[in-house]
């Protein structure tokens, strides 16, 4: 039921100001004023006229597309996303927590130590074998065959 009587000046000014700011679309109106504005629209023809006048500009603004085609940017942006970073680094699958560098550095240190040990241990064994052989050879060579071995016993 609309009322033909004009709006009181204060209401008119307030409504005009809000329509000037936010336009005619209800969902653009400030939350705190929306109910009041809708009520005015229901009861006042003058309020409806003000809204209709304001809606002209809204209609024109709607004609202008505000969202350009951006499909060509998708891949570039997704390439920087956490998905790509995670996929690039396969260890995340095994260590889903933060600070991957802690276990990784411990693993690297242990690995390096193991390699070093592995590289140096054969030399010890090799050297030890050589020393024992040399000692045995020397001991054997110092013994006189003529005195310690009886002829024929060597076989």
């Amino acid at each position, binding site marked *: 039921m609309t009322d033909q009587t004009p709006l009181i000046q204060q209401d008119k000014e307030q409504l005009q*100001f809000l329509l*000037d*700011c*936010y*336009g005619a*679309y209800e*969902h*653009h109106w*400030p*939350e705190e004023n929306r109910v009041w504005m809708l009520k005015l629209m229901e009861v006042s023809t003058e309020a409806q006229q003000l809204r209709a006048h304001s809606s*002209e*500009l*809204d*209609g*024109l*603004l709607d*004609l*202008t*597309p*505000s*969202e*350009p*085609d*951006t499909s060509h*940017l*998708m891949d*570039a*942006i*997704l390439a*920087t*996303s*956490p*998905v790509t*970073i*995670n*996929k690039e680094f396969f260890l*995340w699958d095994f260590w889903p927590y*933060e600070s991957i560098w802690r276990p990784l550095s411990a693993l690297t240190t242990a690995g390096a130590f193991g390699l070093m040990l592995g590289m140096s241990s054969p030399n010890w064994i090799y050297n030890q074998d050589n020393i024992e052989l040399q000692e045995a050879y020397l001991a054997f060579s110092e013994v006189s065959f003529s005195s310690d071995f009886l002829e024929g016993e060597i076989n």
Partner: protein
Amino acid sequence: MIQVAQGDAVACRLLVQRHLSPLVGLALRMTRNNSEAEDIAQEAFVRLWKQSKNWQPKAKISTWLYRVAHNLSIDAIRRRERQGVASSDITEIEDTATNQSGMRHKQDVTNQVQAAISSLPERQRTAITLVHHRDLSNKEAANIMDISVDALESLLARGRRGLREVLEDQREDLLGEQL
């Protein structure tokens, strides 16, 4: 955002699909430069990815992204002004769907409105874009622009008045087409 931080591919793609175009649109309205607008949107997403692990659940992603894009756009505009470089690459947002011959007149109208929007001062353009085209509330828009609601309303009122004045001469033609 939790899913994004955990590297959920679907969540990341959905997020970009939802926010990329509006974000480029806002940056383009502000900078009026296509390549700058695209760079700004990309940078905003890079910052979002970095922020994703420390994301506060209270924050709204769209508002956060708009705010970053808004600040980056202002930086770009100021940088351009300091360098004294004119925005030679001023670009309007193209609506490829309206390029057919039957839609030529509508395209003309669109171009006129677009030109009128571009003629507004940057802050008025931004305010109108955020409230009218992005459907943000006055508080969200004011928050993004780092101004009070009163200041936002002032920008909106002046911007819309400016548009009406610019478009007044073509009013009949424009409204006839619109209807």
